[in-house]
């Protein structure tokens, strides 16, 4: 029985994040007494924004070799500004806004992929640099803002409810379901996992490695762009540093959810729980009245602690000989 449970936990690594969510929520309900279903929707709403961004981060992380998309915060912020500027609060301007956002997502994703795939620049540096370029664009956009207004449709998406459930939560869950479907049921999911596990092996198996990696980067930028749009509608405007929290949190949600930071294995369900858990932790800190500085410290500690824990789990999943390369001549 215990062995079977262990096996289940090893193959469904999101279970830990789900357990964490349950425990923390139960603790909150007991301690605060006032922590109701209402507060849960607040948590779910914040988690939904994070989830949309984290799903993109997860795809990039899955491409392996330590790839991480550091341009996400800049894409979120710029997209928020572009939404405010282009839509001007008018529904009529939404198609054009959407076109601009798709443009931002595609261009950023393609540029990142070009730097990584063609110029073979490590993803962390390529996306850091492209993020800085976007930051420049954001500074320029900041000067163009004349007024903050939100289009009705966007406001409905970001703050509206459908049958008591926030629309944004439904969007987040739908995005996660779609990602899960792509990862588990389509050829792309297999190809992505193959590339993440071993790029040379994937290439020799016939996987179009460049295309696979490119799709991941473009998807990440597009999702960040959508998140930026919705976030501007939720916050009723755009401000500099708006996307900053999503840098650490997107990575955090991915690793908390049980996806391997080394790539090759990821779970959309896990990322849902990872995002929820992270937001719950932050909410708890806010309820406890912790200053923002302490919240940052705790977030950093949580990520590092989870990585320290997962580092061992990774060690068990793959034999040591394989990881260290010591067994190269082993028969």
């Amino acid at each position, binding site marked *: 029985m215990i062995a079977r449970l262990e096996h289940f936990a090893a193959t469904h690594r999101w279970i830990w994040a789900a357990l964490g969510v349950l425990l923390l929520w139960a603790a909150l309900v007991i301690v605060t007494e006032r922590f109701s279903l209402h507060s849960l929707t607040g948590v779910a709403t914040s988690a939904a924004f994070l989830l949309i961004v984290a799903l993109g981060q997860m795809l990039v992380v899955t491409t392996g070799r330590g790839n991480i998309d550091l341009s996400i915060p800049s894409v979120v912020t710029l997209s928020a500004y572009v939404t405010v500027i282009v839509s001007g609060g008018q529904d009529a301007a939404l198609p054009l806004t959407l076109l601009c956002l798709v443009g931002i997502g595609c261009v950023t994703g393609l540029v990142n992929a070009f730097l990584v795939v063609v110029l073979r620049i490590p993803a962390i540096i390529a996306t850091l640099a492209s993020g800085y370029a976007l930051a*420049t664009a954001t500074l320029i956009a900041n000067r163009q803002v004349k007024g903050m207004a939100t289009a009705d449709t966007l406001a409905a998406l970001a703050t509206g409810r459908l049958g008591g459930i926030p629309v944004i939560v439904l969007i987040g869950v739908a995005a996660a379901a779609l990602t899960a479907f792509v990862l588990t049921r389509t050829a792309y999911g297999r190809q992505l996992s193959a590339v993440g*596990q071993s790029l040379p092996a994937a290439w020799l198996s016939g996987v179009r490695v460049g295309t696979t990696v490119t799709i991941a980067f473009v998807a990440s930028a597009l999702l960040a762009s959508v998140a930026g749009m919705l976030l501007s509608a939720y916050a009723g405007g755009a401000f500099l540093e708006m996307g900053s929290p999503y840098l650490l949190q997107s990575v955090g949600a991915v690793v908390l959810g049980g996806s391997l930071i080394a790539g090759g294995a990821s779970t959309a369900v896990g990322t849902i729980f990872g995002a929820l858990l992270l937001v719950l932790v932050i909410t708890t800190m806010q309820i406890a009245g912790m200053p923002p500085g302490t919240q940052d410290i705790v977030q950093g500690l949580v990520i*590092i602690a989870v990585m320290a824990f997962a580092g061992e789990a990774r060690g068990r999943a793959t034999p040591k000989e394989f990881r260290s390369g010591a067994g190269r001549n082993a028969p």
Partner: protein
Amino acid sequence: MTVTAASIVTAGGADGRADGSERPDAVVALGNVTKTYGSTVANDSVTLAIGRGEVIGLVGANGAGKSTAMRILCGATMPDSGSVLFEGRELDPGRYGPAEAHRLGIRIVYQELSLCPNLTVAENFYLEQPQHARPSPLWLAEYRRLARESLSSIFGDTGIDVAARVGSLPISQRQMIEIARAASSPGLKLLILDEPTSSLDAGRAAALHRFVRLQAAAGLSVIFISHKLKEVLEVADRVVVMRNGRVVWEDHAERTSVPALVEAMGGTRTAEAAGARARPPVPADAPVMVTLDGDLTSVLGRPVELRAGKIVGLAGLEGSGQKQLLHALFKASAGAGDVQRTGRVSFVSGDRQREGVFPLWSVLDNIAIGRTARRMPTAMVDRNADRDAVARWSGPLALDPERFESGILDLSGGNQQKALMARALISGADVVLLDDPTRGVDIGAKRDFYGLLREIAAERKLAVWYSTEDAEFLECDRVLVFRDGRIVAELEGDAISEDAIVAASFTAGEAGAGPERARSPGQASAAGRIFAAVPFVGLLIVFGIMAAMNPLVASAFGIELLLAPAVVLVLVALAQMFVIGGSEIDLGVGAFAGLVNVISATLLVSHPGFGALALAGGLLGYALMAVLIQARAIPAIVMTLGASFIWAGIGQTIQPSPGGSSPEWLPALFQWSVAGVPTPLLLILAAGALAVAIDRAPVGVVLRGFGSNPQALARNGWSPLRYAVVRYLIAGAFAATAGLYLTATNQASDINAGASFTLLSIAAVVIGGSQLLGGVIAPAGVVAGAVTLSLIGALLAFLGVGTDYNALVQGGLLVAILGLRTVVGWRRTDDRPA
């Protein structure tokens, strides 16, 4: 075979020497050692004793268990059972590791080279014998002398430049350095040479043989592993044969012969090969799948056409262009170029670990990817269809379907290879490319494999097969023999024999420079020199433009004003440089400088003692990061990203908004001056000089070594943990100095002041000529790069460009330089161990 393995062992035993563990004078001995990998028994109760002054020749086919036994002997692998004895004393298996073996005087020269390619010859000698280093700036001179003397004592005049980077030397010279380095260790008791002459010419090999005999006479014990059996008989006192993980045969060298050894190793398979050729003939009108032309076939003088239904072998010495042809065929298409191919292709690599298996997947998934890999990304995956398709191949492959759900790494090497073969077949390829697929595969799996090849041919597919074992070519219909990147001979049918292949590989065509033609070291270093000059030239250009626009820039006051902001970036960049030198990136270095800025402007002013303690705590935090990265295998990116939030959070907590003041004594630290030279210039030069000094010191050599070849250093007994801590402490100290400087000059602090320095520091390190893969750092270049980047902001202001564009220009510069390096091809050309 006339004698069975068992009877041979008895024959050897009759000599009274077979049970070596009983030898009274044994220096080192293995006693009944067993080691299994998954279901493969790599060593099956191996017993082997090496006497003082004895040279043992160890032979056996690939996968016979020699390498495993040697790794156990030198502590790199822990046996499942059995004992390792040193001078008659049993070693504690829990404590016996590479470092302990090193201390006892056991050295191994590995088949895969274990030198650090980014270090010079002399520096590599230091890693082996650190005890000679004196605390002097000229400490390396001693090692240059040692390297020269060691090399010449074995090989005579080698012409090797001991101040050259090892990676820039040809492989034959690297092999000589490797041998000389191990052989020169003081206190050496046992020297294990694993294929030491594979890259040496006859003269050098003979010199090595003489050296081995001479050292043995002086009391050194040697294990000499080689596939060149004649060489083994010449050099060894006693020959030991391993097969299938066991010691099956041993005898005095003078009493044995090459044919006897061949038979003991597993015999020849001439009979089987004859069976292979009894296949029904391929019709002459079978379609041509591959056409080779141009330079490749210039020696033959005619194009080569390969038809469906054939097994074509690619023979020749290792590295003569066979692999290149396979990869060219994989990428080739019909109708263009010298290498043309029609039909679909699949590739089976014998380097299973690096190019074959997907370690996280089951056997089934590993095979089924062959069906999925080329599909449209949007295509659906049907696991049941996959299972059915895979099941069809389980028979011919002799793969038990019940094992489909187990992890691929649970299978033996031979079964993994069969799964990879199934992957290729399931893809429906018309052309199957095989890159030494039977490497390290046991004989049973090999036979299954040959049978499968015949079936592939029978299904009218073309198999193109590169092997490092000449005997395997007897399975082929046609063999192309390579030399120096060209096809020099073609053998068909009965003309295929090991002798014919060997003759063609060595003599056909003209003798050339060997297989190392890919890129001349001179070319690579020319590109390296150009990139090394980039930061300095850039600095001159930027400074020149600014001075031309405003002559005041070139005055002492102008320089002071311009360089003051650069000091912080120089310090942070030097911190980042040491981290990048270890193949890692510190995403929290800017935030840490900001935190030190805050602590020194608040706590250090109000409670000096507590403030100093807090600063020390920060450095301790850096050391702790190193410990966690090493001990828990956390990626440095995530670790430092998480840490950046911790640094920022602590800073925010101490001081929520900018403010504070500097301790009175702090500015004095940074505001001294010498003879009218601007202070910032002095500070920058001092920081650079310090970094250069650390980098050139022994500790810097070890850090660079860890950056490029950590396994080799660990084998040499260097502690990865200790040096990771040292690396991060150095980085932390530089970053902390940057924070103190911020406080001293701004007389205030802001936790966000350091944030922007993180990207800039990476950019400065890259522009400065360091390599992101680690091990190659350039302190002077980094300083110049940091100053240039810092001046670019001022230059943009001079040119009337808004400060908004700073980040864009700096980020663009970083990407441009990295991209250019890729385009020009200046990256590490040396082979990194995977």
